[in-house]
């Protein structure tokens, strides 16, 4: 299992994937840096009760759609390594189970997005310090806004990796990812059971942990369904 994961890490070298993993958080933060520098007086006045909270709100506002589109692109690139060289057959001819192959790809996606989320958290701290928001950094809140959406978006990571692996034509996976991104921007108005709403962490109970719980549960379910399908599917 670890061997396969290690080989997957090798395969993504020089594929621009790491570049995108860094670019996501850097892009979000530099946009917010521009936003806050240009309107420093206005925004610091608007959020004067809770400067860090204001910054974190603005960061998540951009981060959620970025995570949605980012995970679609990253999973597609991960799966496309095999599609492009027609090497699914070779990979599956190795003495390893289909379970491990699928799980390794899924885990790779999870790890990459985890790295991206962590970078976003670290970057937010740096940005806040540069903007002179004081040294009373709300670490706990920061951890929540960084990792809660990451867990709540799990169903989509599972879905996209399955789509990207199953359909050779990456337009399918990427289009569904794009639709998801646009839908996620208006997701707050949806009823609570819609998965697109979970990464926004809004629900009628006012408890973000419920969104996280739903996300993890449904994510696991979709992963298992994708796995079953991958195991039974004929590889051309």
């Amino acid at each position, binding site marked *: 299992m670890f061997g396969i994961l290690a080989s997957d890490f090798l395969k993504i070298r020089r594929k*621009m994937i790491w570049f*995108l993993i860094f*670019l996501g958080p850097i*892009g979000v933060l530099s*946009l917010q840096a*521009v*936003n806050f520098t*240009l309107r420093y007086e206005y925004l610091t006045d608007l959020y004067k009760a809770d400067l860090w909270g204001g910054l974190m709100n603005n960061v998540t*506002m*951009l981060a959620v*759609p*970025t995570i949605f*589109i*980012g995970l679609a*692109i990253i999973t*597609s*690139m991960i799966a*496309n390594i095999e599609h*492009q060289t027609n090497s699914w057959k070779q990979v599956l001819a190795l003495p390893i189970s289909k379970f491990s192959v699928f799980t390794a790809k899924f885990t790779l996606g999870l790890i990459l997005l985890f790295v991206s989320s962590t970078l976003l958290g670290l970057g937010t701290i740096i940005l806040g310090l540069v903007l002179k928001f004081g040294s009373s950094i709300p670490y706990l809140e920061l951890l929540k806004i960084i990792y809660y959406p990451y867990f709540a978006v799990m169903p989509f990571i599972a879905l996209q990796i399955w789509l990207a692996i199953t359909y050779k*034509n*990456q*337009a399918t996976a*990427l*289009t569904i990812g*794009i*639709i998801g*991104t*646009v*839908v996620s*921007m*208006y997701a707050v108005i949806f009823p609570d059971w819609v998965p697109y709403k979970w990464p926004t962490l809004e629900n009628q109970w006012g408890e973000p942990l419920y969104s996280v719980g739903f996300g993890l549960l449904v994510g696991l379910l979709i992963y298992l369904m994708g796995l079953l399908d991958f195991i039974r599917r004929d590889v051309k």
Partner: protein
Amino acid sequence: MIKVFQSEFLKLKKSSIWLLIFVSPLLSTLVGIGEAFVGDSNEEEWLITLSIMSYIHALLFLPLLTGVFSAFVCRYEHVGGGWKQLLALPVSRGNIYSVKFLLVIMLLALTQLLFTVGVLSVGFIKGYNEAIPVGEILKSVMGGWIACMPLAALQMFVSVAWSSFAAPLAINVIFTLPNILVVNSAKYGPYSPWAQPFLAMMPRFDESFGALNVPPETLFIVIFGSFALFFLSGFTYFQRKEI
């Protein structure tokens, strides 16, 4: 040129990509129907609907779809080593590039047409009393279409250059996502080619926000300037590219 177009059209018909032209108009129509705006709803009800739907359609969907279309018309050549076979035919590279670009533009035009149908049907379903502001709707739809051309040109360039499907799309996303912030800025919004579809499609009200207050002349300079730059660089690149 017409023959090349026909053959490209045939390839397109066999793929399911044209289904994508329905996605965004359909979603924005649903939102248009679902949205119940309050206040003095008798005034400018068409324009309010148009702006709600444009918000969904043009802020992210349209620029991103432009990228998908461009990547797709190059995909079937990248996948089966089709570039070589295509260029071995007695057709010029310039023709092939222009035809592929035209195809993307055509798909976008169909999308815009469906969007118009969407706007009109929302109006009829809700039974608006006001006369249909034909001029405003046409201006919005045509403007959005023209504003997509620079993006289509750039995406053709990167799609031809890279065989991966996701890479050109990543470029597109990198420039399109900032739209969420950029369109609010009166200073920078007008100069971002990726914000143009949105700026062109939003109907103007008396009190508009951000970059919407910019005179159309500025926008046209940005659109045509970036189009010329992107199209010519892509065109020259394809002429010299080693296949």
